[in-house]
């Protein structure tokens, strides 16, 4: 009866002391944030803060390494904040801030680490080296940690500029590109652990590297990293839920597409003895698109609720909205194709890759080529 107990035993009994400690730290952190910064929040902000506690707790319970990752990035962010001592100028004076954990530097580290991780995974694939793969995986963990630290510190820095400027760093194309890299990286790490294979890393990290390359170009030639205050339309707690939900979607779709590439290669017999079998890739693809679709559905609905409040209409076919709708339809179609016998196999992989093109257009193409109400920086 031992084993039979396992699945049905209540969640609470399955938790380890580490889990309890983690949950306690989360709750403590939230309470501290409420006490310390409650003055800057409205009731919705507070509700969102409180809801992130069970959310992150569940994440950590279901995926243990997530706890260490969150603890590390939070600790780094707290050190950074302590070093700042409330003075922005110290970013230039304190060595650790300037070269390690001020927001901009941390994001640069994230970029570098993602690049090196991509190299390591490619090497692992080429040389069938488990060591290189493990290195790639560790570097990816470091990259997401640095990136998350960077965003948290950036949040703090924005308030140092001025209380009226401060806002969560999800407000422009630069910030969401960082978020995209992080989300895709984390999703990858999750599936890597879940399926116990690191060989998809080379493919997924490739799309992250592309995003990071764009980010660097955006930084160096457009100076897009400068924290900007929020225009009135963006001053809303909705941003805190709409944008992350969206990027879980984008990240998952990007991951699915890259796994789709691997899937097609394996089906053609290329790298077939180095990559996981097609059924595994197919399964990862489905899981990623499922989670992406679910969150993208939520994100689109949240966006509609926000639009109703900011623009007075929950849906008005603004180009960004329309493209979100197209992305959503695309993956709804994908899910239906998968349910249809005879259309599965390579067709699904091709469709997922095409999906990335559609998603990328919705993400950046719309800003570049079309005009509309969405104010996330035009290129």
């Amino acid at each position: 009866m031992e084993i039979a107990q396992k699945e049905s035993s209540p969640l609470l009994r399955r938790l380890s002391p580490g889990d309890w400690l983690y949950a306690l730290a989360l709750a403590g952190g939230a309470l501290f944030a409420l006490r310390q910064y409650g003055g800057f929040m409205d009731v919705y902000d507070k509700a969102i803060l409180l809801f992130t506690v069970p959310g992150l707790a569940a994440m950590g319970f279901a995926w243990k390494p997530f706890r260490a990752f969150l603890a590390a990035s939070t600790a780094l962010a707290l050190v950074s904040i302590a070093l700042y001592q409330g003075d922005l100028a110290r970013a230039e004076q304190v060595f650790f801030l300037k070269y390690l954990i001020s927001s901009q530097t941390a994001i640069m580290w994230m970029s570098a680490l993602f690049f090196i991780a991509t190299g390591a995974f490619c090497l692992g694939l080429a040389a069938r080296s488990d060591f290189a793969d493990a290195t790639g995986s560790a570097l990816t963990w470091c990259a997401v940690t640095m990136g998350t630290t960077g965003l948290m510190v950036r949040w703090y820095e924005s308030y140092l500029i001025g209380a009226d400027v401060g806002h969560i760093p999800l407000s422009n194309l630069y910030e969401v590109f960082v978020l995209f890299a992080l989300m895709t990286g984390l999703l990858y790490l999750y599936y890597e652990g879940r399926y116990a294979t690191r060989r998809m890393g080379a493919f997924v990290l490739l799309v992250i590297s592309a995003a990071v390359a764009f980010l660097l170009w955006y930084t160096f030639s457009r100076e897009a990293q400068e924290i900007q205050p929020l225009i009135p339309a963006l001053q809303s707690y909705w941003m805190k839920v709409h944008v992350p939900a969206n990027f879980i979607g984008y990240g998952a779709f990007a991951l699915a597409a890259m796994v789709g590439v691997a899937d097609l290669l394996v089906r053609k017999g290329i790298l077939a003895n180095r990559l996981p079998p097609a059924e595994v890739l197919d399964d990862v693809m489905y899981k990623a698109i499922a989670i992406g679709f679910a969150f993208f559905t939520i994100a689109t609905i949240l966006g509609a609720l926000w639009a109703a409040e900011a623009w007075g209409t929950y849906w008005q076919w603004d180009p960004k909205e329309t493209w979100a709708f197209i992305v959503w339809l695309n993956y709804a179609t994908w899910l239906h194709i998968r349910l249809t016998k005879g259309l599965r196999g390579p067709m699904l992989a091709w469709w997922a890759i095409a999906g990335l093109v559609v998603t990328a257009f919705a993400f950046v193409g719309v800003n570049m080529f079309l005009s509309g109400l969405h104010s996330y920086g035009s290129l």
Partner: protein
Amino acid sequence: MRHRSTLRAIYELLSSMRFAISLLTLLGVASIIGTVVKQNEPYNNYLNQFGPFWFPVFEKLGLYSVYNSFWFLTILGFLVLSTSACILRQTRPMLRDMRGFREHAREASLSSFAHHARFAHSLPVAQAKEAVEAYLRNNGFSTRINGREDGILLAAKQGSWTRIGYFLAHGAIVLICLGGLLDGNLPLKIQMALGGKQVTTGNQLISRIPDTSRLGVDNWSFRGNVFIPEGKSANTAVLNVQDGILLQDLPFTVSLRKFHLEHYESGMPKRFASDIIITENATGKSVEKTIEVNKPFEFAGVMMYQASFEDGGSRLHLLGHDLRSGGAPRPLATEAVVGEAMALKTAGFDYTLELGSFRAFNIENMAADKPEADTGNFARLEKHLGSGARSPTAKDMQNVGPSIQFKLRDSAGQAREYQNFMQPIRQDGAWYLLTGMRDSPSAPFRFMRIPMDDDGRPDSWFAIRRVMLDPTRHPDIARRFTATALGADTSPDVRARMQETTASTLELFARGGFESLGKFIENTIPETERDKAADVFIKILEGSAWEAWKMARADAGLPALVPAAQHSRLLRDTLNATNDSLHYGAPVYFQPVGFDEVRATVLQVTRSPGKPIVYLGSLLLVLGVFAMLYVRERRLFVLIKDTGEALVALSSNRKSMDVEERFRRHRDDLTTLLNPSPRS
């Protein structure tokens, strides 16, 4: 009979997955069109963009309002139809599936499952039954037991309500589409078709708009804008429909007390807010409220949003400086109102001034663009390290003060556009009043810089310019300039030539500025000497300007000037601005000197009866999608045969790898369970 089978075929087609897939793809492609062609622009823009041939074609195709077009709504209609048909078709089998345990499954069919296994069991059947039953219960299955002649079959299932998810999600699609339809412009179209309402043109007084273009307060679905200047009130909203407008009477009157417009230091907008008072027509009850972006307000079933703001008729105090040669020496004070056209028919003018907009401030980056020193790659990287708060290149955001933008239309109807600043702006170390001109709305403004004199006023420039461009005074200037430029001992001959040259230089300059001088040089002087000649002409002009200045001061009865270093800069600027003024295209320069700003708010008002339906649909959609994707329906069959053989089979409604893994675990657990080791 025939008829029924066709209907049947249609129903089957509509409810088929392949049809759904094609429909979703088609809908996606169709949606793209509306993002390529900008939607709901004024028809004139389309006419310009597509030309007279394609314009009506595209209009017929509904490309200017794709998402309200007949064909797009038809596709959506098919989606609703197809989804409904699909639900209808799936209901019976799904309900049967949800309820049933399939406890009568035959052994043969169980052993055809992809996941099945046989093994021997050592427990007596009754005991085995109990153990398996407990096992299934503990694993979250509900079980039905079927005793049969060769043993017993335990048929268990879990996660059946993933099927509910199907109904929720697909029902939600239908709900959302229907709700959206109520809030779209279909209700309006129906009213126009059945109620005889007609759109009218926008540029007429609201009171003159006929009843056929007015919608009553009982209209239950609309979206329009209310425009209210500060201190005024409004009780109708304007609905933009096709290429005209309709008026929507509101059940209340809104008046605007004040519109708040706040900016960050960088000039980015920070807050738009309207302090309004709403008075309900029926009850006279009134409410005070501040509406902001992201903070709408509902009153009498109408939602009100801060949509935008405009000028509400600000009054500008202007000084009109006559630029015509021999024009009025004193500037003329006038007043103009933003948004209104003013006829200028005095003093021989025949123009219309159309004051388009007024900006109370302009934030500009005044940092000089320094060429970047090449500092190497590391330094370049280092500049981008640190906090996200600072920009690697220095910025100097400054408010350069108010500006106006207006059109000056001549009697032939030709218009030029101008942008004039109220305060002098510092450029290259000196202060200037800037005025920009352009011939077409798409061109950038070309700026004329009027230099400020020692008193910080533009008056000297006007005075010098007046004298310099006045042909009757050219001989006088030439004489004075010659006297200053040449010593007393030069021969009268040289003097006469100098005087003549100066006079003709002035004459050329007055006619066409540097351009006519340049032409003259090109035509008369050999190439090698042109640079030198140009220098000479400039010297002459500068000297003449100095003389003209002194003369202007004498005319005005002002004390004589003491030469000073800053004057040479002023004289050069004066010449440049005078030159530019010859291409200014207007006989008058309007210097803004004061303003009374009046802002207006634009509130969007809506009644959207479909909103609760759409929101409910959205909620159901999310629940449904999660249930479908994350609740797995699993059926576990355990057949325990009297012969000592057992069969385990697992099925799931979705094919995925964890089914396999789950199966292996159940199989192994059950094997152990049914074969207890003798000692335990």
